[in-house]
């Protein structure tokens, strides 16, 4: 029996139709999305997950001449906020940022918080910045300031970024140390939208010791954005702002690469898909500097400054055979690591406002009268031009008195001494004169009178070199032009000429001007580097080299990319005999009993040198007793005398007398240099065998020393030197 209590339902047939219809609609839509629009949607899926990121090429590092690392890169962390991942709710956002601030403050309690500078601060910085200090920031840009946003500032920035609709990270705290970064990372689950971004920063291992040389990096100065952009830089790239970082920017700069990465919805990197092109680190520099010597020089100079109660000083050492700078210290200095980690406005302002100009490399950027060390130039010129020969005796007593005074006749009353202008030798203040000396003796005792006469002539008795020839020789020795050292901001100095005086002061050049210039005074101004370079040229027999700070550019594998050869600026047009005579004069200054530098001894090494005590006028520095001008202390030297391998220049601003202040510094440097180079041997070896340089000087100085003794012993009271002025 077949029971049919319930007939089939028409409504269910309709339902079947509906299901099939909807199935068809869905499949059709699926086809539309996956096939018709598939390509576009796949592209969007790829756009979602793939990011082309720039990979920074590491900046090259620097080594000293012995391979000691001076500069390297270390990772630092920026704490950034990704606005789109942060809470929308204002209160939640504030709570999050306050928590973040708390974490940062706890782990960086010792570091000052940099508030965003107000416009008033910015003005203060401008007002306080002397032109020279601004020039020290190589291209007059702003350094990298330390970024720290307060909670309110951060909220404002995040809101602004959100309004812009851009996925732009806001830097909440820049360049935090790794402890802070780890503290933030540990709490990251409580800090949505907060990320750490790693940026390499420079680490200057020798810090203040080499900051004047090495400089620092920072953001591209506004004025140079166009040219850097043209060279392929991006706006937030770091470039050298001072020192070698600037000069060798091109070599040091790493080549940025591009990498394709896959990211998740929060923009976090999941994996690297591929390198479009790899980044490459920049090349490394091997400097000519010897870091050990540099440290020793800084110690010596610091000691010298303390002893003289002076604040500014320079010490430079060079290999006179090549022009390689072995050490260069300018005090006071600064810590370039401040700039590397982002300087605070207060720290920067302190540096700018410091009257001693710590940002300035005084060795190459500041100008001073060279004083008696300039006598090298005057004597070379006079000898070369035949104005004198090695036996010509000039100096005191033409008027019958040995008092260290000579007179320049008044041009209208040439015979009336009452109208004549007196010129003093430094020894005049000791109540005597040097009598008559040859050029060697004059260099040894630094007889001003002698140099007045050989340069400017003396009454009708003697025809001098003349100002035009003196200017020529001054320039030949490299004064008045940059030495071309590998550092930005070098000052060319000033060589005064009659034309210069006429155009500057509307005055005629006088014989007295020539007198002053002959002893490195008057309007003549030079950098300590120029003084050293002139000394080195005499030391090596007459070759003026461009001072160099970099020996080699090497790649990361250590292959030499570029080797720097000695670069001759010019061979001085001096006969070898002339150079020899001047060298002998400098030998005598150290090695004769009455030489101004006779206090100097370097065990086992013969040194030649020249002291200088240069008067200067500075309205802020009070005059000495009897209205005497304050003086800078100078000392230049080279050693070993026979075959010099080091030449030095020491300068102490307002230090007093060269022999008393600068010479001890030079002595410490030379002793240290030879100690480093020829360290004391173990006890088994007899001391006499350990010291290589010969002790006795070449022949002629011996003769000279004899004659000097005969002549000067009883007239020279002390080793102190005080230059005669106008």
């Amino acid at each position: 029996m077949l029971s049919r209590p319930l007939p089939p339902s028409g409504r269910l047939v309709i339902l079947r139709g509906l299901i099939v219809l909807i199935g068809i609609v869905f499949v059709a839509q699926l086809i539309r999305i996956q096939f018709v629009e598939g390509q576009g949607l796949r592209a969007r899926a790829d756009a979602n997950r793939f990011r082309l990121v720039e990979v920074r090429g590491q900046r090259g590092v620097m080594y000293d001449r012995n391979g000691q690392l001076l500069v390297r890169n270390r990772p630092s962390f920026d704490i950034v906020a990704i606005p789109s991942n942060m809470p929308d709710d204002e209160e939640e956002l504030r709570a999050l940022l306050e928590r973040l601030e708390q974490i940062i403050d706890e782990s960086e309690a010792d570091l000052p918080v940099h508030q965003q500078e107000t416009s008033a601060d910015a003005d203060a910085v401008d007002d306080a910045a002397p032109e020279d200090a601004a020039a020290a920031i190589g291209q007059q840009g702003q350094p990298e300031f330390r970024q720290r946003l307060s909670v309110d500032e951060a909220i404002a920035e995040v809101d602004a970024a959100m309004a812009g609709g851009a996925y732009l990270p806001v830097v909440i705290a820049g360049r935090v140390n790794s402890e802070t970064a780890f503290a933030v990372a540990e709490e990251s689950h409580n800090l949505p939208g907060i990320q750490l971004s790693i940026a390499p920063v420079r680490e200057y291992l020798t810090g203040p010791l080499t900051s004047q040389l090495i400089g620092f990096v920072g953001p591209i100065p506004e004025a140079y954005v166009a040219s850097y952009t043209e060279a392929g830089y991006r706006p937030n790239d770091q470039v050298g702002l001072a020192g070698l970082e600037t000069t060798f920017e091109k070599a040091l700069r790493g080549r940025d690469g591009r990498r394709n990465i896959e990211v998740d919805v929060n923009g976090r990197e999941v994996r690297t898909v591929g390198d479009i092109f790899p980044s490459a680190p920049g090349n490394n520099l091997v400097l000519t500097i010897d870091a050990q010597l540099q440290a020793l020089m800084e110690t010596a100079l610091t000691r010298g400054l303390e002893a003289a109660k002076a604040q500014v000083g320079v010490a430079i050492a060079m290999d006179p055979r090549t022009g390689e700078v072995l050490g260069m210290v300018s005090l006071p200095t600064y810590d370039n690591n401040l700039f590397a980690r982002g300087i605070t406005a207060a720290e920067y302002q302190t540096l700018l406002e410091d009257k001693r100009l710590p940002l300035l490399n005084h060795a190459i950027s500041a100008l001073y009268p060279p004083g008696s060390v300039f006598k090298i130039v005057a004597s070379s010129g006079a000898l070369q031009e035949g104005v004198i020969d090695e036996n010509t005796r000039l100096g005191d007593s033409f008027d019958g008195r040995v008092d260290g005074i000579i007179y320049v006749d008044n041009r209208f009353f040439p015979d009336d001494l009452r109208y004549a202008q007196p010129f003093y030798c430094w020894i005049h203040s000791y109540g005597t004169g040097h009598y008559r000396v040859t050029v060697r003796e004059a260099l040894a005792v630094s007889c001003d009178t002698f140099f007045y006469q050989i340069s400017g002539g003396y009454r009708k008795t003697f025809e001098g070199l003349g100002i035009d020839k003196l200017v020529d020789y001054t320039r030949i020795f490299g004064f008045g032009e940059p030495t071309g050292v590998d550092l930005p901001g070098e000052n060319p100095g000033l060589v005064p000429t009659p034309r210069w005086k006429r155009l500057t002061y509307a005055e005629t050049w006088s014989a007295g001007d020539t007198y002053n210039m002959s002893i490195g005074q008057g309007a003549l101004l030079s950098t300590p580097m120029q003084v050293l370079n002139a000394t080195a040229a005499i030391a090596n027999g007459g070759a003026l080299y461009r001072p160099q700070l970099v020996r080699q550019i090497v790649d990361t594998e250590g292959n030499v990319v570029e080797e720097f050869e000695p670069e001759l600026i010019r061979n001085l047009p001096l006969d070898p005999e002339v150079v020899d005579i001047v060298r002998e004069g400098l030998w005598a200054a150290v090695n004769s009993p009455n030489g101004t530098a006779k206090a100097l001894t370097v065990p086992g090494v013969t040194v030649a040198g020249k002291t200088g005590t240069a008067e200067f006028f500075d309205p802020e520095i009070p005059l000495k007793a009897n209205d005497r001008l304050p003086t800078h202390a100078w000392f230049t030297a080279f050693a070993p005398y026979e075959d010099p391998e080091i030449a030095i220049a020491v300068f102490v601003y307002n230090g007093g007398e060269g022999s008393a202040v600068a010479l001890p510094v030079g002595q410490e440097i030379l002793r240290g240099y030879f100690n480093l180079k020829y360290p004391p041997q173990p006890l088994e070896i007899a001391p006499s065998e350990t010291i290589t340089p010969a002790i006795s000087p070449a022949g002629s100085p011996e003769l000279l020393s004899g004659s000097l003794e005969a002549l000067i012993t009883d007239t020279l009271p002390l080793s102190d030197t005080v230059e005669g002025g106008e």
Partner: protein
Amino acid sequence: MRLNLRRFDFVLLGATLVLLVFGVAMVYSATQGVESYEDYPLRQAIYGLIGLLLLLLISAFDYRLLTSLQWPIYAVVLASLGAVALVGQVRGGASGWFDAGIVFVQPAEFSKVLFIIVFAQYLASHHEQIGKPQWVLGAVALMGLPAALIYLQPDLGNAIVLLVIGALMLFVADLPWGYIVGATAASVLALPLIYANLEGYMKTRIDIFLDPASDPDASFNIAQALISIGNGGVLGKGFGAGSQSQLHFLRVRYADFIFSVIAEELGFVGALVLIVLLIIVLWRLITIADQARDQFGRLLVAGVIALIMFQAIVSIGMNLGLLPVTGITLPFISYGGSSLLTLMIGVGLAQSVAMRNRKIEFD
């Protein structure tokens, strides 16, 4: 009564089991690598097993015994929904949950299948007079009360599901066309009024559906769903290898947007297989309803059909950008224990109807 295994619908059971395994696999793919979702696939598998046991148990049980329990069941539905509306804690935004000790239970899910039983019996007992207004009004009241309680949780999605189940059951119960046309016209006219009374988030979802540009941040999810589906192509990116899902561009991957995960990772073929499986399930259920011994059995199955069909349409339609975003999950596939158990109970009831269908065999 002897169990007649020849009447048991093995095609339906097979399709259901394939869907279950499919679901567990996709939940695994959608949650891998996320610590807080780590146990989801295992839990889903366990719920599936429990569901399977329930399905077999219920199919052995004679559905006709339920007729006498109509009003106690309705009382349980109203009581549990009322309790959730009053004291139930709000979890996961818009869902009402009951903390049943170890697990959280969503009464709204179970109330659907209980409602189907109550409503099927009501319509079956008034089958001959279904055209009469008082019985129609009674039916409206019967489904309106639990729907209102779910809406108060607030859970608009499940309230609508309940109403649609009721409507489809009325349709299968041969409600005269006059009522159907009238009710359709009335709801269309009432749409603006309903819209005006909606809760804020519901309005927003509809606004975004009508004009995606109105809120770029909120339309992010649906845009990512379309990108995922488009990204899949013919064969997909491979299981567990969809960039959109694995890199978390897709939100709620294990539930609301699981269809997009399937379309991305298994491509057009995978999505088509899923749609066909669902159609097979529905097709077999319609056959069971058609061959049901009595009106109660037919309407019981019609309710289960409505439950599966409506959720599948809304979920897939949303993923395909054809319907607004709701919290409704894909039957058998999406993660969710209450939902899965409810569906398995429904299928079990349908099997119970199938095993007692009208093709009485000659012994």
